[in-house]
């Protein structure tokens, strides 16, 4: 056993727990709440800080500094690179996402069940878990008419005869119609604490400590009042729930590498800043999505604060001053694809941040071009007068004829992509040659170590993965309880 080889002079704090949950996002909070409520002694470790959910405005500078990993400046390297954002605070990415809720489509679950040989992964079983999670999270539709930025999507879709849907969200609405996003810091983390769980924030797990085929705990670093403190947490069971980038990186740092970090999936997303002849709301993300081309292509509204509008305009051209001055008439929409490509997460020795790579295929680039054209078509139908695609030097489109040139413009050198959905870097299922865990998140060859987050999904679902992550996490937590 390599119990913490203590070279550090700083005092070491030792904690003991029955179940250690690493990460407090959608997977970690679900795991912690269910296990604590079943009477387990649970400790949750979160690398980021506690932040009052009401302390900062959504998508603001303050939120990016406090709640985002790397201030939101991360990228998967490749041609083209894909910028991505992850949460780093108690509640994880549920604190920073748009709160859209989409159950895992039944046909996709079926496909995964067969392809990865996942036991007990039928649609009725998953739906039963999803219903429970939806009740906890107050999943609901907007009580009032959609804001103008959403209505525009619907208008464009109607004109073109495309299907569009208002997705429910994890929002609770008061009688006046004001919605509050039900993040993990508002829902399952308080439930876990009420059931006796301990949450240790600002605490980074450096590595897991193993003894033969078991994990016996974790070595962590915590910064308190500017002073680093080493914490050794001894645990009977460990759940790693750090998300699709941090989970495989921690496993690799701990010497667990079999099928770990391969198969990363994400939804490459291309954007358009659309200018309209009238002012548009900028306070919320549209719950409407165009599902005409789902699940391989989804079109929707993006965060469109003044800063986001500026970024989207600058992605297209350096001549954005006029449109920026008119920013109240501009809002940002996106087209996201399911991609054939895969990526990797690789923990680098002596470096905190893992290397993330993603190689888009030619077919992916073609899908992105098609997505951009469809999005452009939709926005013109909705009444937009100018379209700025996130492709350097592309034509600023003012009429349908202008869109044709975008086919050639979307290439690996000039296209600016981003994503907020990362999955599949561990993978679950009995197909041992391709997965890092069994059907319930048990890491191969390590008896008491489990993964329970987005990294388990065998593939990108084509929609916001929070519902799938929480559903599968609840299923796996109950499986754990049934085994003990």
């Amino acid at each position: 056993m390599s119990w913490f080889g203590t070279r550090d002079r700083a005092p070491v704090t030792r904690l003991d727990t029955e179940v250690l949950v690493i990460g407090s996002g959608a997977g970690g909070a679900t795991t912690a709440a269910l296990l604590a409520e079943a009477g387990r002694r649970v400790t949750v470790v979160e690398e980021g800080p506690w932040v009052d959910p009401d302390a900062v405005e959504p998508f603001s500078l303050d939120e990016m500094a406090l709640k985002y990993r790397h201030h939101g400046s991360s990228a998967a390297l490749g041609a083209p690179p894909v910028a991505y954002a992850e949460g780093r605070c108690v509640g994880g990415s549920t604190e920073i996402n748009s709160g859209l809720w989409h159950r895992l489509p039944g046909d996709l679950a079926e496909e995964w069940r067969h392809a990865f040989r996942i036991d007990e992964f039928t649609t009725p079983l998953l739906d039963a878990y999803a219903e429970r999670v939806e009740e906890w999270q107050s999943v609901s539709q907007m009580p009032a008419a959609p804001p103008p930025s959403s209505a525009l999507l619907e208008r464009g879709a109607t004109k073109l005869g495309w299907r569009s849907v208002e997705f429910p969200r994890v929002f609770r609405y008061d009688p006046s119609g004001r919605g509050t996003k039900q993040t993990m810091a508002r829902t399952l983390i308080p439930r876990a604490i009420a059931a006796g769980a301990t949450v240790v924030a600002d605490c980074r797990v450096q590595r897991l400590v193993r003894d033969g085929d078991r994990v016996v705990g974790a070595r962590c670093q915590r910064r308190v009042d500017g002073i680093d403190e080493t914490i050794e947490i001894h645990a009977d069971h460990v759940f790693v729930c750090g998300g699709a980038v941090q989970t495989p990186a921690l496993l690799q740092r701990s010497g667990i590498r079999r099928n770990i970090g391969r198969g990363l999936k994400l939804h490459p997303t291309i954007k358009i800043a659309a200018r309209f002849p009238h002012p548009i709301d900028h306070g919320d993300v549209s719950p409407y999505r165009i599902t005409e081309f789902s699940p391989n292509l989804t079109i929707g509204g993006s965060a469109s604060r003044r800063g986001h509008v500026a970024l989207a305009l600058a992605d297209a051209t350096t001549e954005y001053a006029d449109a920026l001055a008119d920013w109240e008439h501009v809002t940002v929409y996106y087209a996201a694809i399911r991609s054939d490509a895969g990526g990797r997460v690789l923990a680098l020795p002596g470096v905190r941040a893992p290397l993330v790579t993603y190689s888009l295929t030619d077919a992916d680039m073609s899908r992105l071009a098609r997505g951009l054209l469809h999005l452009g078509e939709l926005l013109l139908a909705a009444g937009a007068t100018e379209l700025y695609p996130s492709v350097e030097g592309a034509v600023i489109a003012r009429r349908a004829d202008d869109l044709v040139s975008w086919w050639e413009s979307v290439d690996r050198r000039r296209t600016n992509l981003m994503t907020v959905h990362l999955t599949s870097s561990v993978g679950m299922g009995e197909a041992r040659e391709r997965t890092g865990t069994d059907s319930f998140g048990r890491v191969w060859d390590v008896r008491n170590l489990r993964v329970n987050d987005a990294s388990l999904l065998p593939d990108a679902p084509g929609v916001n993965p929070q519902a799938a992550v929480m559903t599968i996490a609840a299923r796996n937590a109950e499986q754990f309880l049934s085994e003990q």
Partner: protein
Amino acid sequence: MLGFERQVVDHLVTTPDPDRRAAVHRWVAGSLADMPEHLRVGVYAESVALAAVARLLRAGRRPSDDDVARAVQILDVSPIALLRQYVRLFRSLVLFAEQELAGQKPGA
């Protein structure tokens, strides 16, 4: 933040308000410091190389504001994606911060 990086940021900020300029500089410095190490090393290397070229062209003297403006203009249209992305990174950080700060209520 390196000296050359500070000059690039200074060139890209448009507001004359000194407090807001300082806030943008703080945001960019914080973002660079918080970047994944391998990305920061890449940006750092580009900054060092670009600063060296700029100094070479000025016979060893520190590049002036006009030199930096010209450099940004050239990098913006460079056929080398890595160089265009260098400017894009700084422009994104500056633009986002400047626009968000402009949208804040006084005293916020």
